[in-house]
């Protein structure tokens, strides 16, 4: 790993001054330690295991939201001034974000209050107060981090409660339909079609795979997908059309490659997708092994 910038270096002095760490009583040594920890955790933005030069370290540090980072760390360490500033700046936006995420004022306030309690470090482990703010690394803005945290809390809560729904709550009318009888052996043509679909979908790129998942599995609108890819919704629409056309062409090509004639291929493309024994969701979500090796921190 790269060398730690010496406390008296002009770089550190400049970063310390610009971050406003002094306002929260954060000394240079402590600031240096925080920066080093953040840099180490993220490999200074390099490939895992790569050694960062001083210049790369400086570039990495300059890319951080240092003002937000020092505020978060000062809050996590319980600095009163930092908390006053945090509450003045983030309290109302946090409530609004929570209300927007939950779609309900009551639930939103509850969610925001819950997060506030956690941020304040009311939860303790091994007798030490822990605040999630300690895990903020300054990559994005602190407000963005708070929003994402709220969204994560909400999604996890929703998934947990849905999973834990007691069976009694299932009304008789809402019982899941009985499973269809095991389908018989599929015709050879449909097996070929399924094979062509799987092969084609496995070849498409990450962004395209994401587009398909977001549009067809999640049922998101173009307007919702566009900001995630940082493009206009019209671009998403074009990409999607091109992608679907490309997939269709590739399937046709594969089927022709299997020795079918054009007419048979056209007939097969008109087949009812329900006749195919395919789990598109599963196929789309099969990818390379996960690069994220982190697990729950708390």
């Amino acid at each position, binding site marked *: 790993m790269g060398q730690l910038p010496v406390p008296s270096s002009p770089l550190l002095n400049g970063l310390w001054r*610009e971050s406003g760490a002094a306002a929260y009583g954060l000394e240079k040594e402590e600031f240096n330690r925080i920066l080093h920890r953040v840099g180490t955790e993220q490999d200074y933005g390099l490939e895992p295991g790569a050694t960062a030069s001083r210049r790369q370290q400086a570039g990495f540090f300059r890319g951080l939201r240092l003002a937000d980072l020092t505020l978060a760390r000062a809050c996590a360490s319980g600095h009163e001034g930092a908390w006053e500033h945090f509450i003045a700046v983030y309290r*109302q936006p946090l409530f609004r974000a929570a209300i927007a995420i939950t779609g309900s004022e009551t639930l939103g306030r509850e969610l925001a209050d819950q997060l506030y309690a956690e941020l304040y470090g009311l939860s303790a482990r091994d007798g030490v107060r822990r605040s999630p703010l300690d*895990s903020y690394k300054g990559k*994005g803005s602190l*407000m963005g*981090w708070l929003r994402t945290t709220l969204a994560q809390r909400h999604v*996890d809560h929703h998934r947990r409660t849905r999973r834990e729904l007691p069976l009694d709550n299932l009304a008789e009318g809402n019982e899941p339909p009985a499973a269809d009888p095991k389908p018989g052996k599929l015709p050879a043509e449909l097996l070929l079609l399924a094979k062509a679909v799987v092969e084609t979908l496995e070849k498409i790129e990450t962004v395209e795979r994401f587009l398909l998942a977001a549009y067809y599995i999640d049922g998101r609108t173009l307007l919702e997908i566009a900001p995630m890819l940082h493009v206009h919704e019209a671009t998403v629409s074009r990409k999607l059309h091109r992608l679907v056309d490309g997939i269709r062409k590739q399937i046709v090509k594969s089927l022709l490659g299997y020795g079918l004639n054009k007419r048979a291929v056209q007939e097969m493309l008109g087949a009812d997708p329900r006749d195919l024994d395919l789990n598109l969701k599963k196929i789309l979500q099969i990818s390379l092994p*996960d690069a994220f090796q*982190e697990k729950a921190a708390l």
Partner: protein
Amino acid sequence: MNSNLQLDLHPDTDSLSAFAEQALGVAEREQILAHMTRCSRCRQVIYLAQKAVEAEALEALSAMPSGRWYRSWRFAWVPAAALAAALALVVTFYPRHAAPAPEMAKVVPQSAQAAPAPVPQEQASAGIAFKPAPVVAANSVAENKKLAMLRQPPEELALETAPSTASPRGSGTSTHSAGENNSARTPSTKSVQMRTQQEPPAQFNPEPAVDEWQQRQRMTGALSANANTTQASQESMKTAMDRAQAGRSAPAFAVESHTAKQAAPAASFGIDTQEAVSGSAASRNANQPILPSGLAAISTATVRQRMLAIDVAGALFLSEDGGKHWESVARQWTGRATAVRVQAGAGGAVFQLTNVSGFSWTSADGKTWTVQ
């Protein structure tokens, strides 16, 4: 990793939020995207975070004062200009349309005047006001006089009748009994038109008649009245424009300022920051800068004499002299800019611009912006 208790492998909160804010490098972004392709939970998290950003932006927009009555004056020039154009058209073309009528009478042979067409019985018995037919009008004074004698109209009518047969003035000023109408009425329009078609078209020359009529109208003041009307409409349009300008330049907003709250950390950098942090409700300085767009500023940031301001429409303006003169900054960001602020950078203070989606751009000079 975040603090929730799920044990799946997910990107940490920091990476997800940075992804949503487009603050990641290409490689890391690709990693997150690949993960999100197969993780519906993370996709949902990002959608919800994005939803919160949009709600925040909408909140900021709705917090702005709605359009005041005087703001609508900025569009007053549209109907005023349309009205002026319509009046100009009327003034220009009205005499030309009215003038050809006397020329049609010119081709009528004398014999036709002596043989009046039969008048419908109901019209004759009704005793309605006499409306001279266009064909009655004669180009020459002699013919006019002859006709006037035949009809025995008042003198002023005889003078007025010639070019203005189509004018309501001439038509409405004289009344005659049914008997007079019967005897004095000259050939009907139909008969004259039939004869006119037989004449060579080269004889048709309305210009002198138009000039003559215009001269007479000027003498009577009719045309000058029109001109006055046009002038008056132009003046009213100008007044409307002035009012619109006044409405733009002096907006009276209800000012809600978070400056005191924001100033604390900035003060330690020796920087004057006047905006709401992280896209919160837009704050306003009590001294609203007057921007070239004429719109109110929703966010401003100042470093020494250099000042940046975003107006309601999301346009960015730069002032190098503390807000006295402004210039527009070319758009180098996506979406609507909602906030600008001063951020401590490596080489000193830099400006940071945030759009509705929460994405940020930075600039050292306020002119050139780079995405963060």
